[in-house]
C-alpha cells in the first residue's frame, strides 16, 4: 500500500474519539507533513443530487452597518464571548466580522465590510491542513471539522482574508447562559480553529426537509438561509446557488458593481460584494 494511502487510512478514525496515542501521533506528524493528504472520507462516493455552488452576495450599498449579521451569527453558532481582557484582544472568535477600512485617499471616508468566510473555490487553507480537518464540500462549502483539528493554526496563516479564529480557551458559559445555545451547532473546545460555515447545518436541514417532499430546495428558500442573511434588516445579504443561472445570487454576482476580495490571488472566493455607490 502506498505511503499516502497508509497515511490517510491512519487519519480516518475508526471511533468517534481518536485515542490519546493517536492524537499524539497526529500532533507529531504535523511537523513532518509536506503536503496535506486529502482524507479518504472527503473523496468518497456521494449520493446523486443536484450539485450546487453555495455562494453569497453582500450589497455594500444596502448595508447600513448595523452589525445585526454579526450578532445573529454569534447567536446561531454558539460563538463564545470573552470579556475585554486585553490578553484576548483581537483574538476573540468571530465568524462574521465587521471591518472598518480606512480610506485610501485623502478626504475619503471609511467603509464597512461584513466579512464571512469566503468559501474559496480554490482555498489555500485546505491545502495546508495536516490532518484533513478542513476540506471542500462538493457543494462548495469549505468545511471545518472541529473534532479533527489539532490546533496547529497553519490554516489561519494560509488564509489571506484572516477569516479563521482560534479558541485560545475553553468556552465558559454559566449554567444559565448555556441554555440559550443552539442545539444544532456543537461548541468548540480549546485548541480548535473555527470559522464561518455558511450555516451549513441550516442548509443540510433545508435539504432534508425538501427531500422528504421529494424535491430540491427552491432559490427563494435559500436567499435568507444563513443566520446573517435572515437577520439583515436591509436585505443586503443574499445566499444561494451560484451555479444556478436563475438564482438571485448569480444574478447579483453578474452585476457591474460586483467584485471579490483579493481576486488576484486566485482563491476564487464564493462571496461577492456589490460596491457602494456614493451617488
Amino acid at each position, binding site marked *: 500500500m502506498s505511503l499516502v494511502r497508509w497515511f490517510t487510512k491512519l487519519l480516518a478514525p475508526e471511533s468517534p474519539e481518536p485515542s490519546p496515542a493517536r492524537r499524539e501521533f497526529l500532533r507529531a506528524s504535523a511537523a513532518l507533513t509536506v503536503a496535506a493528504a486529502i482524507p479518504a472520507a472527503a473523496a468518497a462516493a456521494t449520493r446523486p443530487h443536484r450539485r450546487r455552488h453555495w455562494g453569497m452576495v453582500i450589497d455594500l450599498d444596502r448595508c*447600513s452597518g448595523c452589525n445585526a449579521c454579526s450578532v445573529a451569527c454569534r447567536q446561531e453558532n454558539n460563538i463564545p464571548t470573552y470579556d475585554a481582557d486585553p490578553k484576548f484582544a*483581537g483574538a476573540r472568535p468571530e465568524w462574521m466580522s465587521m471591518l472598518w477600512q480606512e480610506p485610501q485617499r485623502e478626504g475619503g471616508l471609511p467603509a464597512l465590510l461584513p466579512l464571512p468566510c469566503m468559501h474559496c473555490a480554490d482555498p489555500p487553507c485546505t491545502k495546508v491542513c495536516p490532518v484533513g480537518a478542513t476540506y471542500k464540500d462538493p457543494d462548495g462549502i469549505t468545511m471545518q471539522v472541529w473534532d479533527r483539528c489539532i490546533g496547529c493554526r497553519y490554516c489561519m496563516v494560509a488564509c489571506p482574508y484572516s477569516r479563521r479564529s482560534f479558541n485560545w480557551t475553553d468556552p465558559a458559559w454559566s449554567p444559565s447562559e448555556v441554555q440559550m445555545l443552539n*442545539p444544532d451547532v456543537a461548541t*468548540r473546545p480549546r485548541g480548535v480553529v473555527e470559522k464561518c460555515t455558511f450555516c451549513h447545518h441550516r442548509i443540510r436541514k433545508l435539504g432534508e426537509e425538501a427531500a422528504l417532499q421529494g424535491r430540491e430546495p427552491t432559490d427563494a428558500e435559500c436567499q435568507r438561509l444563513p*443566520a446573517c442573511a435572515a437577520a439583515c434588516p436591509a436585505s443586503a445579504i443574499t445566499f444561494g446557488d451560484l451555479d444556478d443561472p436563475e438564482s438571485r445570487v448569480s444574478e447579483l454576482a453578474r452585476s457591474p458593481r460586483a467584485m471579490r476580495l483579493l481576486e488576484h490571488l486566485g482563491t476564487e472566493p464564493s462571496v461577492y460584494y456589490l460596491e457602494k455607490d456614493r451617488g
Partner: protein
Amino acid sequence: MSTNDQTRRTILAGLGAALVPACRRASWSPPEQDPTARSQVKPYVPGAESYATYEERWVTSSCAQCPAACGIRVRVVEGRAVRIEGNLENPINRGGIGVRGLSGLQALYDPDRVTQPLRRDGERLVPVSWDDALSTLGAALAKLREQAPEQLLVMSGLERGFSHELLARFCRTFGTPNFVDGSPSHTAALARAMELSLGVRDVPAYGAENAGAILSLEAGLFEDACRSTYFARVTASMRRDRSRRARLIHAGPTFDLAAYNADRWLHIKPGTAGALALGLCNALLRDRTYAHELVDRARGLAEFRALAAAYTPERVAAITGCDAALVDELARELWERRPVLVIADERSLAFSNGLDTARVAIALSALLGSIENPLGGLRIAPTTPMRAWEEPALDDVARRGLATARLDGAGREFAGARSVQGTLPDAIVAAPPAIALLHHANPVFARAQPERWRDALAAVPLVVSFSPFVDETVLAVADLVLPDHTYLERLEDATPLPGSLRAVAGVRKPVVTPLHDTRATTEVVLDLAHRLGEPIAGAFPWRTSRDAFEERWLGLHAAARGTIVETSPRAFLDRFYAQGFWADDADAAPVPVELALPTTWSEPRWDGDASRFPLVLVAYHPLGHGDGSGANQPWLRNLQARPGLGAWTIAASISPHDAPPGVHDGDRVRVASPHGSLVLAVHLDPRIARGCVAIPTGGGHAAYGRWARGFGVNVMELLGPAVAPETGASLSCTTRVRMEVVG
C-alpha cells in the same frame, strides 16, 4: 495590483488590531487550565444528546429591547429559547432584526438576574416571599393613602404601553400626581415640538418610502433612535430599489452610522443643526420657492420670516462650521427632490436648544411641502382602534391628592412638560416622598448626576424596584425588589414607537415558562389594587392583567378591518396571539393640520467657563445601547459601529488638533467638567468636529451583572442638572469639559 495588497494589509491590520484598550477591569477570567494539556472538553450542546421528545416550537412575539417593538419569532427547544429572528410578516421590521433584538436571549438567561423578591437588610438584600413582600407594600400603601397619598412617587421607564398605563391608572386612583416618565429618551421634547407646531402631541411618523431625500439634522438614525431596523430597511430601499436613487443627507459632528450611510455628510458643530435648517428655510423663503399651502396660512409667519432672514449662508457657516456655498445649493437640491423627510429626533434634542431645533425642522418640512404629504415626509403617527379602559371613578382622597403640586414642576416651571426627571433629585431631597416605585428605571446610573439620585432616593423611606436585574438603584437604595419577568416571559402589548405609517398593534407573549420566581409587574399592580380595596380595586375590575389587555385589543376586533378580521372575539384573539400582531389594511391617510411657526432659535448653551473648559461634551448612545438596559448582554459589546472604536471600548473621541499635545491613541486621559471627572482611554478621531469630545453612554456600571460591572466609565457623572427649559427634557449634551493626560 497594489490596491489589493493594500487591502490585504488593511484587512489584516484591521482584524488583528481591533481594539483600543479601554480603561476597565476584566470581569471574566478564563477557566483554570494547564496550558500544556490538551483540552478534554468535547464538543457539546445542551440537549443535543437527550432526544426523547426533542420538542421544538416557534413562538411569535414582539421584541421589547427598544421602543420599536419589532415582530420576532423565537425558536424554543425543550423549553429553552435558543434563537430569536425577525418575523417576516410584521410590517414594522419585515423579517429584519437589530442587534438588540438578537441579544434578548442574553437578557432572559442573564446569570445574575434577580431570582426572587428581595428586601433590604442593612447593606444586603435578602430573599423574601411574594406574600410577605406584597403584604408589606400593600400595608404601607394603605397607610400612606390615609395620610398623604401624594407622597407616592412612581417612575415608569416606559412611555407608552399597557403596563405604563396601568401604573398611571394606579397613581390616579391612589391620589398622587407624581407619576413620572422615567424614560431616558427625549421623545417628550419631540412630542412637545409637534404639539406646538402642529397641534398633535406625539412623536411623528415618517413617510420615507417615496421621499426623494432624507435630511437628518443630527439624528441618531441607526444608533440610538431605536428605529435602526426601520431605517436600515428604508435607506437600503431608497438607494437601490427606486428608479431614481433617493439621497440621505446627514448633518452631524461625528462620523457615526448615520454619517456612514449618508450620501452626503455635512460636518457641523454639535447642536447647530437648527442653524443649518434655518439657513435652508431662509433660502427657500428668499427665493420664494416653497410650498405655500401650509406655510402661507401658518401662525407666526412674519416672525418666522424675520428669524430666518438672519440666517444668511455666511451666518450659518459661522455657526455650524460648514461651507457657506452649500446652504443654497442644498436648499435647491431638497426643493427639487421633494417631498423630503426632515428628521430631528431624540439625539437632535439632546442640546438645550433641542425644542427650537425640532420646531425649525418641522417648519423646513412645511416649506418643502412635506407635512402630511402622501408621497412622503413628516406625518402624524397613525393610531390603532384599540379600546380605552373606562375612566376610573375617583374618590375625594384621590381628588385631593391629585390637586397637590407635582414634585417635578411639570406643568408649572416647565409649562410644556408632562413629566420632568432632571429636577427630581433636588425636589426629593427637599420633600422626600414616603414611597417610590421604580419600573424600568435605574436613575442611580442612567441619569445625569447619579450620585445626587442616590442621595435623593436614600432619603425615601420605602423604595421599591421592579427590576429583573440587580442594577445600581437596586443595589444602592432599594428596600424591596419585586422582580418583573423579562420580556420573553410576559404577556403584554407591544405598542411601537411611531415611525411607520402603518398602524400596528403587537402582542408580546411568554416564550418560555418564567425561569425564576418573578411576577409580571402588571399582575403585581392588580394585586396591590385589590389589596387596597375600594375605590381603587373598582378601577381594576380584572382578575388578571390578560383580561385587562384583551379588553383593549377587542377594539381591534370591533373595527373589523386590518390583517385579522373574525366574527367572534375569541377567534380574533386566538389569531392575534398566534400571529403576534394586528396591522391596518393600508398606510394612514394624511390628515389636515394647522401649522404654527417657531419664532426663536439659539445656539446650544453649555455649562462651565470656556476658559477653563474649552471643549464641549457630546455624550451619545452608541449602537446597541438604546435605553441603556443592554449592558448585561455581552453581544452588545462586541459591536463595531464606528471606525477606530473597536468592540468592548469606552473611549473619549477627540480631534487630534484638540487633544493634549503628545497624546497617542489609547492613552489614558482625564476628562473633567464642572460637575465631575473621569479617567478613560482617548481615541484620536480625524473626523470628529473641532472643539468637542464624544463619549458613549453605557459604561461604568457598578452593578447589573458580571458582563456590565467594572467596564468603562459612566459619562453621566460629567453632566450637571441638565434640563431643557420649557419641556423639562433631560439633556445629555450640555456641559463643557477639558481633557488632560494622566500619567
